[in-house]
């Protein structure tokens, strides 16, 4: 099954049932974890208990409070420490977690029934007040929570009884459940506990033990975890390797049992060194776009942008940079609802340097055009080499650019404010819902403004798609949105690829990598050495 379908069905199942049987309390069947994960069953033998899993991490966490952290490097830890009302299963379908199910009396109301007997790591029982307190904290401007934008459609959270909580939305939303299911966005934190950023207290399968920056992050099994028998591991240790060569050496020398790589070629090379190394099948979750400053000449002219799209040979970039481990991209990666599969026809995707030249001439640049600096992330060699290939391809159509690799922090500042001269590339990582991706192009959105977006028709399409609860119709709507983005060449997406390539030794059993690269399946992992 393709990833896109998987997620689509997941949403479909969760959403359509909610609408069909609006008033019946619907309990999504638990134990779905195993049933829904054939890969776990296929591994056969009964899990062995005990042992430690050592994971090689490429970055230290920045804060461990799911409400306030925005750093991807923190997700590794929040995904073991905390859980939310819902979660993604191995097939990227939404299933209940801290909730046992929910009913949806109308399109904008969700009533969740909580599991009973769940305890936080500090021994306190979880109840509906904690759920409410978590969302109050997200909405409080003083928290500066990155999740506030994602949950801005929540009108109210009401405690019905200690194990029942009701969410009222301001409008029907197809994104709400996806965000709830995503760690750390939908994680529930205990009320009245301060300093979660350094002393995390959650309901997850592992408990915080110790953290020495740059060295080791240690977690031990939560004896009170609510899924019987889990976790199987006694402890999980993360060790930090900032250097790619050190990380690969650590995996090959078994100083670590599991890690992930940013470069598909490195991953392929490492896995070839031993038949006992397992590499996760890549799921395309990340896109490499060229963002354009359309506030001014010459990129406010659609003909110039279309020329850039026509002159680019996306397939060649994919083959050269990723060795084919990926797909041609549009705005939404394949692992999302309505994601682009990399083969369908998109406007201005067929490489045609002559056509590009003609468009440029029509726009008033018969002798070609110099677009100046094209800014890329220096720390990402994949991005830099793709930019170099694009530079050559564009040159053939008479478009000149000078590549300027930059440090990440100032590049992000430029990107957010739209202060780059013409072109800038920064890859977009997995986000729980396609809306989070395309919303960046709204003319009312800060990102949209920074790029100079001003397309009322596209705005209406994006806002409309949010409220489409039927998954098939929703997927079709996103296909239309992407088509419009390609036709107007608002963003030039080149290729899509997995954010991380995971790899582990075969004595690590029961682990399932997710398209989101969130390691929640460490809870079912066991060691067979």
């Amino acid at each position, binding site marked *: 099954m393709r990833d896109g379908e998987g997620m689509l069905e997941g949403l479909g199942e969760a959403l359509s049932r909610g609408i069909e049987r609006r008033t019946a309390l619907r309990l999504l069947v638990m134990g779905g974890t195993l049933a829904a994960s054939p890969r776990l069953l296929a591994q056969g033998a009964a899990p062995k208990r005990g042992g430690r899993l050592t994971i090689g991490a490429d970055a230290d966490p920045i804060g461990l409070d799911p409400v306030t952290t925005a750093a991807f490097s923190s997700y590794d830890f929040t995904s073991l420490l905390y859980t939310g009302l819902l979660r993604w299963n191995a097939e990227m379908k939404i299933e209940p977690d801290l909730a046992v199910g929910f009913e949806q009396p109308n399109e904008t109301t969700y009533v969740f029934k909580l599991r009973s007997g769940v305890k936080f790591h500090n021994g306190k029982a979880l109840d509906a007040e904690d759920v409410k307190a978590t969302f109050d904290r997200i909405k409080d*401007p003083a928290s500066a929570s*990155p999740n*506030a934008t994602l949950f801005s459609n929540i009108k109210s959270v009401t405690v019905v009884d200690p194990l029942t909580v009701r969410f009222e939305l301001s409008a029907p939303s197809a994104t709400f459940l996806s965000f709830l299911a995503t760690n750390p966005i939908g994680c529930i934190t205990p009320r009245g506990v301060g300093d979660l950023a350094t002393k995390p207290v959650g309901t997850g399968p592992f408990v915080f033990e110790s953290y020495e920056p740059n060295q080791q992050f240690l977690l031990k099994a939560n004896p009170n975890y609510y899924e019987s028998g889990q976790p199987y591991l006694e402890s999980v240790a993360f*060790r930090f390797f900032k*250097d790619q*060569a050190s990380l690969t*050496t650590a995996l090959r*020398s078994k100083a670590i049992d599991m890690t992930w790589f940013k470069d598909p070629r490195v991953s392929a090379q490492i896995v070839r060194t031993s038949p006992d190394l397992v590499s996760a099948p890549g799921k395309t979750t990340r896109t490499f776009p060229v963002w354009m400053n359309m506030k001014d000449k010459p990129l406010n002219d659609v003909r110039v942008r279309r020329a850039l799209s026509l002159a680019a040979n996306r397939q060649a970039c994919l083959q050269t940079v990723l060795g084919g481990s990926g797909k041609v991209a549009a705005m939404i990666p394949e692992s999302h609802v309505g994601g682009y599969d990399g083969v369908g026809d998109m406007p201005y995707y067929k490489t045609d340097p002559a056509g590009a030249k003609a468009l440029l001439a029509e726009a008033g640049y018969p002798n070609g055009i110099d677009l100046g600096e094209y800014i890329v992330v220096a720390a990402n060699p994949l991005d830099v080499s793709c930019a170099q290939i694009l530079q050559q391809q564009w040159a053939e159509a008479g478009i000149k650019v000078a590549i300027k690799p930059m440090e990440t922090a100032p590049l*992000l500042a430029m990107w957010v404010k739209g202060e780059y001269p013409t072109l800038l590339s920064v890859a977009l*990582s997995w986000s729980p819902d396609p809306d989070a991706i395309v919303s960046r192009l709204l003319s009312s959105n800060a990102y949209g403004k920074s790029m100079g977006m001003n397309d009322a028709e596209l705005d209406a399409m994006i806002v409309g798609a949010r409220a489409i609860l039927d998954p098939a119709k929703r997927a079709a709507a996103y296909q239309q949105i992407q088509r419009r983005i390609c036709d107007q060449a608002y963003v030039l997406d080149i290729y899509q690829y997995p954010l991380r390539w995971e790899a582990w030794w075969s004595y690590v059993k029961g682990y399932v990598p997710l398209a989101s690269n969130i390691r929640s399946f460490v809870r079912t992992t066991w060691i067979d050495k």
Partner: protein
Amino acid sequence: MGAGTMGRMVLLRLALTIPILLGVSVVAFMLMRALPGDFAQAAAGTTSISAEALDTIRRQLGIDRPLWEQYLAWLSGALVGDLGRSFVTKRPVAADLLPRFLVTAQLTAMAGVIAFVLGSATGLASARLRGSADWLVRGLNSLLLAVPNFVVATLIVLLFGLYFPSVGIFNYTPFMQDPLANLTSLLLPALSLGLTVSVTISENTRAAVLEVSSQDYVMVARAKGLPRRAILLHYLVRNALTPVITVAGLQLAALLGGSILIETIFTIPGMGQYLFDSVTTRDYPAIQAIVLVAATVVLLMNVAVDIAYARVDARVSYE
């Protein structure tokens, strides 16, 4: 030279470090803030956090205030030993920095000893033995000088990690936990850090020994039939040591700089890796503290070199 003059000299040199440190702190403060991008943006990455939320974070950290106000607030804290709180860990920077400083101090000291022993031994050998030994040492030195220490470190990691995994290349152990394991775990990093520096010391030792060898007093010593050993120890080494000490002292800055890369490659939780992380995340209080500490160490080391210089070379006086 009397002890009094020496004491005055030391005090004067120490007093002079204060305006330098102030200058360093201003530069460190302004440079980081002159760079576009701040902690809030670096931590948020490409997530769709709202501009208002970013501003709230900036307000909470105080990085939205005028620069001079931020600097004065930081300086008044630093003067009483309060270096502020890290944006990332939210803990006092001093508490985060101290253990890392000790690790780097140990690594640098070990690398320094390795560099000094290796450098002066090869330099002396190359000057005294001449011929093929000289050729070999100088050839190796040129090679090591051309290959940066991070390449040497990466090669060591690959070699030991893949072919001698029992060495446990990434097993950094704190000194208090197991002193012996601690020394073993730092040996290879110290070697890769010290090698490049040893080249400078080796070349300077060689040049100094050759120069001293041709001095008249050495000729006289030889002519009056002193044993080679005595000439080497009492005439050559002592006199050749002066320029070598100066060079060795100045190489400390190179060692501190090199520790950033070496610690990152060998995953040692020292000040170098801390600086790397802090710059990437724009953790201003941490960066300022590290720069201040590193500058202090280098300045104090220079004062120490001057003192040692006077002790070794009778011609030098600070009157």
